[in-house]
């Protein structure tokens, strides 16, 4: 899926310091297209920090980031969006006071010119969001004009995921996508994550539930105190073994480098 054989995303020796606090220490990791990677670690391990570099919110203190073989020298959320890197977070992404159709295209609304003035293209907004509602398994009675405030947590996640697919993204970062979801909704979201991978996207799945992500991920990357302590294919270690690594916080010394 990548041009010139390079990984889709390559992070090399990333350091990130906030004052004296080292959030990331010499983290090197590659991500390929068509891969579902579980990014695991305790709270404060650096998972979200690493992802914020990828989504353009943080600029690394040291180290290099390549996307599709090209080095990234300027970090900004807008650039990440343009490159097709999308982060799906539990708490943000949808405005409750707006309809599904308005949320769907928020920030990149299609317009239709009437008398030279750019008016929102409601037909396109409704049709496209209705298609996602249908494809991503929302209740039949949910309409494109319904406000997001009426939807359940799982339905909101489904819309965010559906939206990221519709916009032809290349990297989907799911930040704790199944927190506060019911069992059935969680399975649905995990199923969607696999579906995205099968379409050739890179899916980075952040969680601290190793058992859940081990079932669906191709590869597991574990961070601890800003350091990568494991990077293994899912088939090579059981979830119990991986949990052991997390519990010991990499103190056993041997970093499990398999990548």
């Amino acid at each position, binding site marked *: 899926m990548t041009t010139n054989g390079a990984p889709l995303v390559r992070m090399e020796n990333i350091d990130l310091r906030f004052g004296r606090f080292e959030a990331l220490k010499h983290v090197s990791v590659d991500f390929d297209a068509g891969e579902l990677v579980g990014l695991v670690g305790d709270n404060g391990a650096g998972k979200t920090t690493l992802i914020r570099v990828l989504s353009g919110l943080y600029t690394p203190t040291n180290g290099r980031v390549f996307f599709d073989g090209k080095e990234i020298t300027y970090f900004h*959320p*807008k650039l990440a*969006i343009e490159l097709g890197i999308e*982060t799906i*977070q539990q*708490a*943000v*992404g*949808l*405005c*409750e*006071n*707006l309809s599904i159709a*308005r*949320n769907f295209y*928020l*920030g*990149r*609304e299609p*317009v239709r010119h009437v008398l030279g003035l*750019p*008016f*929102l293209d*409601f037909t396109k907004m409704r049709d496209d969001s209705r298609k996602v509602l249908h494809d991503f398994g929302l209740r039949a009675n949910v309409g494109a004009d319904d*406000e997001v405030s009426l939807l359940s947590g799982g339905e909101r996640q489904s819309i965010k995921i559906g939206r990221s697919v519709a916009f032809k993204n290349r990297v989907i970062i799911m930040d704790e996508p199944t927190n506060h979801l019911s069992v059935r909704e969680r399975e649905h979201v995990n199923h969607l994550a696999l579906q995205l991978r099968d379409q050739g996207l890179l899916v980075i799945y952040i969680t601290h539930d190793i058992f859940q992500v081990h079932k669906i991920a191709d590869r597991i990357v574990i961070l601890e105190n800003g350091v990568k302590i494991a990077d293994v294919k899912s088939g090579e270690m059981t979830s119990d073994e991986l949990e052991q690594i997390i519990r010991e916080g990499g103190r056993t010394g041997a970093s499990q480098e398999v990548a």
Partner: protein
Amino acid sequence: MTPSSVLSRLGRRADVGAIVAAAALLVVFTAFDFNGFWSFFTLLNVSQYTAILGLVAVGESLVILTGEIDLSVGSIYGLTAIAFITFAAPLGVPLAFLAAMAIAIAAGLINAFLVVRAGMVSMIVTLSSLFFYRGIIYVWSGGTADSLSKANRVEWLTNLLGGNWLWFENGFFLFVIVVIAFQLILTASRTGNHLLAIGGDSASAHSRGVDIGRAKTFAFAASSALAGFSGIVTVADQPQTHVTLGEQMELQAIAAAVVGGALLTGGRGSAIGAALGAFIITSVRYELIGMGAPSSWYITFVGIVLVIAIIVNQWLSATLRTL
């Protein structure tokens, strides 16, 4: 469409309360015609002051629905009016209009800069502006009232802004155009979608690449521009100013915006609602005057109208939506 889905759609509108209340008021004033509400002079006065307050309220509701507040509109209304009259003598009316509007917009951009770039709370920023520009008015005018010269009163632009057409003040027609334009911006443009999104959930709007600073800058600039425009329309019709021109107008404008369905926490509001809110406040005022109530009652009544409006708004939108 079934009747209940029509009602449910109506219930989603921010301005549903104002629409119902304005309709109810018209019925009441028609049924119990205390002092000739439908009389020529009352209609003329009500429509004109609705326009003047409504212009300010439409701008105010843009700011409110992004979750901010603009307390400076009354002072900017007065400052722009005085600037227009002062500049008209040396520059002529058209240039004075442009220069006065430039001052209004600049004042809005300064508010926006302090809120967006310096990250200050809009209530404090615009409270400072309220005092600052009111002070400028006192210093600039030296406490005396000024007025347009005879030649400038018959200038075409003065007539366009302050003249009459079909028995109504031109300001009323200009107001209707402004309301339609801003209602379209709010409901059917990208800027409107961004304003509503920011007011509803600015973190989510930001995550979708919405430029929050730009949208808020638009809201503050539009608010000042409309307040200034209203000030010019006021003095084009009655060309004398006073240093207290526009005092407490910010409070009436906020009241009109809130009666019109603007949510102070942001994410909800409508230009039509703000216009109807201005109409409700103004018509109640003229009815009170007509009934011979002491003028001080007006303010008391605005307070009552405000509380009732919020209760009715919440109740109506909750009830209609469940249909």
